[in-house]
């Protein structure tokens, strides 16, 4: 077992090949990264980098879940690294101007979601996106973010509360 907790098992069936896993998982990983980074342009790039690293160590993946979690883990972390670079710039030397939304044909839906996610801390954002967007459970999110499940639940609760405040009440909640 190496530092990633990865064992040298070769059989990845039922997802037999890297390409199959890529085609089935890349869209969700790309959109997860975009949500965590609040930048829809970098999401696919981040996911591509995460899968490139997965490709590099494909023969050390123990199972499809292991490979999938690895891709998510690297993508979420790269997305947070993207945030680090963006947040670190102001106190040293400010880099070229760049907003969190890099689209030129910006949609209201994306802008609304990106703006709402800004109210969450980076960790809350990652937890909410993994569970409420990528449909993972707390255990999977905890494994990806390498924090305790109890901590996941705390971040999830706070993150959801903040999101609900920014999204506003649902139509049902507005009924008298």
């Amino acid at each position: 077992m190496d530092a990633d907790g990865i064992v040298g098992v070769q059989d990845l069936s039922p997802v037999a090949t890297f390409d199959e896993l890529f085609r089935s998982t890349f869209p969700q990983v790309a959109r997860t990264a975009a949500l965590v980074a609040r930048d829809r342009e970098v999401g696919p790039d981040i996911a591509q980098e995460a899968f490139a690293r997965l490709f590099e160590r494909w023969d050390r993946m123990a199972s499809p879940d292991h490979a999938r979690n690895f891709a998510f883990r690297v993508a979420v972390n790269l997305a947070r690294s993207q945030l680090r670079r963006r947040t670190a710039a102001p106190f040293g030397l400010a880099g070229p101007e760049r907003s969190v939304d890099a689209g030129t044909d910006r949609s209201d839906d994306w802008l609304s979601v990106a703006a709402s996610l800004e109210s969450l801390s980076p960790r809350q954002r990652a937890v909410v996106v993994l569970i409420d967007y990528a449909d993972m459970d707390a255990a999977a999110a905890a494994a990806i973010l390498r924090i305790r499940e109890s901590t996941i639940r705390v971040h999830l609760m706070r993150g959801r509360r903040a999101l609900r405040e920014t999204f506003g009440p649902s139509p049902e909640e507005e009924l008298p």
Partner: protein
Amino acid sequence: MTNADPRLADRLRTGADHVTFDVEERLAATHRRGSALQLRRRVLAGAAATFIALVGLVSVWRFVSNEGHVPASPPDLSGAIVYVAGYGRSDTPEIAVWSPDGGSTGTLSIPWGALSPDGRRFASWIENGKLLEDGYGLSDLHVDGFTDGRDEVLLRDIAAAGPPEWGPSGEIAYWSYAEPFDVAYELFVREEDGTIRGPILTMEGQLHGADWSPDGSSFGIAVGTETGIDGFDQVHGWSVAVVAADGSAVRAVVPTTGNPSSVAWSPDGSRLAFHTDDQGTPTSEGADIWVVDADGANLRRLTSVDTVDRDPVWSPDGEWIAFSSRPLITEILGRPIGSPTAKEAERIAAATSLFVVRPDGSGLRRLAGPGGVLTPWAWLEEEPTR
């Protein structure tokens, strides 16, 4: 078992559906990238040291051999303002100097980093090709003679989270990520004898540096975190704070209405300058320069809310503050802030100027630009020439 919240999930998916890509195209690119990764890592580590040495030599030569003119200086200003004039290859800053006698517009291409207080040495993080388990790049701390090109490696394999910060006695403070997959970062100090002290602070959220007080007893920091600082629950939210250099105490100086950044001590240690964005105001894109006494009294905004004013640096005599200033993007581009194209980014940069103002708000004047100025970096007593 924790299940997705259907309503939030629906909103997130609605937004995320606008993240578009061609899967097959991405797959082909991933194959190419994955195959190249391992080779690239091996090559990077070996090539980095050679590259740094060559770039350093060439850059120093360019800097000392290049001459030009900058606007004539007001007679009451002294010293030399080192500022970022633009970005070269790979976003490497191009450094220029303004001084009352004309200064040098020769540019020096150097990595992100910090000048020592005497302007003779330059500290920077250079990625060494190694990665944390989570893919975050590790760096070595290089210190170069700003004028003689001498290169020394002081630290290795650090998950650096921001530029190094020179202390008054040659010590260097730095933020780093200690744990893979963690967003918390820690503040350490490398003493001049090589001893590492810390972590002095642990925090999450916005990362805004740590400016040493002139006597080295404390740091001025900008806090932009809802989670606060570990062990010091009284400091949270947007604020400017002072931290004892040994980490034993953190004191909130003043809360801020916008996200603060670029805290800078006055040379006599009595005041702090910083900038905040203008969130919550009609011109939320703007940013302003502020000054406050170290005890939190006499908070004063020095600049207009309808401009973007950032990155204050004090003159050595404490009489002036230099900063960068430009109009709002809506004025430059005719549309709200978005993602500028390369040409639009050039237009934004071309609208940025170097200004000075006295700490009481008087004497506002433009020293250089618009154009050829991005942000001031340091104000030294003498121009850093060989």
